[in-house]
């Protein structure tokens, strides 16, 4: 009975019949889809990905039913948001449950996304209408933290190689700040033998 309950609870979630192993991947990450304007023609960021490096550990918890757990950490390359005087970087840590079905691995879980923003202070001379004005730049590092629901799907096109796509959901409680990021990429699984 307990197994049936577990099956019902975890079936829509994720995992695998492989042994515990580590994977490393390169992903294209599109943050806060449709929330950001990317040019002066009103185009929104439906496809403005940044490079992400993702690492994950695969913990096989139930070989019979192909369930697994997946601690994951991913981070983006520091970027400038168009202003070279300020920098930002995104780091995501998550923990997902997984379910493997043949060549496919489905995952869903929870995580925390950190957005680090920093600059070295000083001033920047900018147009202020008819004149130019020195505006102060931020000095120091500030970090935002967002809880996320993460989900993903992998297709193992070779035994150690998988294509992955998925997303993060933010601020489900807020009708205004609710948002979705998506990613896609490729992962190599080290020592994934059964």
């Amino acid at each position, binding site marked *: 009975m307990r197994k049936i309950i577990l099956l019902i609870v975890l079936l829509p979630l994720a995992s695998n019949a492989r042994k515990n192993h580590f994977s490393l991947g390169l992903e294209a990450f599109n943050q806060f889809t449709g929330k950001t304007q990317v040019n002066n*023609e009103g185009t929104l960021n439906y496809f403005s990905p940044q490079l992400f490096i993702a690492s994950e550990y695969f913990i096989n918890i139930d070989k019979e039913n192909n369930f697994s757990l997946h601690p994951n950490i991913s981070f983006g390359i520091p970027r400038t948001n168009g202003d070279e005087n300020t920098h930002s970087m995104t780091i995501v840590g998550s923990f997902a449950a997984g379910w493997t079905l043949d060549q496919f691995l489905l995952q869903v879980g929870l995580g925390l996304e950190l957005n680090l923003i920093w600059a070295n202070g000083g001033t920047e001379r900018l147009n202020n*209408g008819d004149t130019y004005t020195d505006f102060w730049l*931020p000095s120091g590092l*500030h970090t935002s933290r967002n809880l996320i629901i993460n989900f993903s799907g992998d297709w193992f096109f070779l035994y150690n190689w998988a294509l992955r796509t998925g997303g993060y959901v933010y601020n489900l409680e807020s009708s*205004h700040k609710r948002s979705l990021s998506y990613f896609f990429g490729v992962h190599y699984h080290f020592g994934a033998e059964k």
Partner: protein
Amino acid sequence: MKKLLIFFLFTSLQAHAFTFNNNIEARFEDPSIVVNINGADCENSQLDPDTLYQMAYDAVTDYWNQVPSSSLFLKMGTITEDATNTFYTEPICSSQDPCVPNENIKVDKYILISCNDDPQNFPSKNILGLTLTNNISGGYIRGALFLLNDTPGNLFNDLSRDEIVAVIAHEIGHAVGLGHSPTEDALMYFSLIPKRRSVGGDDIAGVTYLYPKEQPFGIISCASIDTGGGPHFFFPFLLGLALISFIIRKVKIS
């Protein structure tokens, strides 16, 4: 030509962006900020307070309240009837170079949007608005005043409704502590652009820097200020996942 119209903010004292206008990075202490509208009619711009209120609502809803990584949440307050004529007629600075804020129009605990017809504030019709965080103490903004140019011949009548909303959103950006951005896609760019639909990446970085989202601990206060959302199940979901993991381990051991 209209598209190239310059609107600029005369931030003579403390106002910032992804640059700041001062070096103390001042912000509102509480990221839940009320925006009020002065009850005076904007006679030359043909904007009545109710219309201005609706435009300001669109400005906060379509722009600043959309940023997922920021705790900033602007709430529309009321159309105030206190000293309406004073806010409509007085200069924002009692003296210039540097600007000394006019104590008669000091704003307390919120952002006030008002039309104003003082030519000292608006020496050029190209200036659509100016914002001054005219109440700062302890490193925090206590109140900010945003004046719309209502002098005769101002250019608001040449703007579309969406452009006026974008102007209001830009000035509110100054009121919460942001300065100008060098990137054209940013709302805090000094000039109107052909089509404005959302904040830009630099705006998101700036408002996230000043008002970062701090979940999971911040989620309680966030829930209390947003009445438009659904159930708050992050913590129960997290606990549920932990419980499932625990049960799985127990099953595996047994």
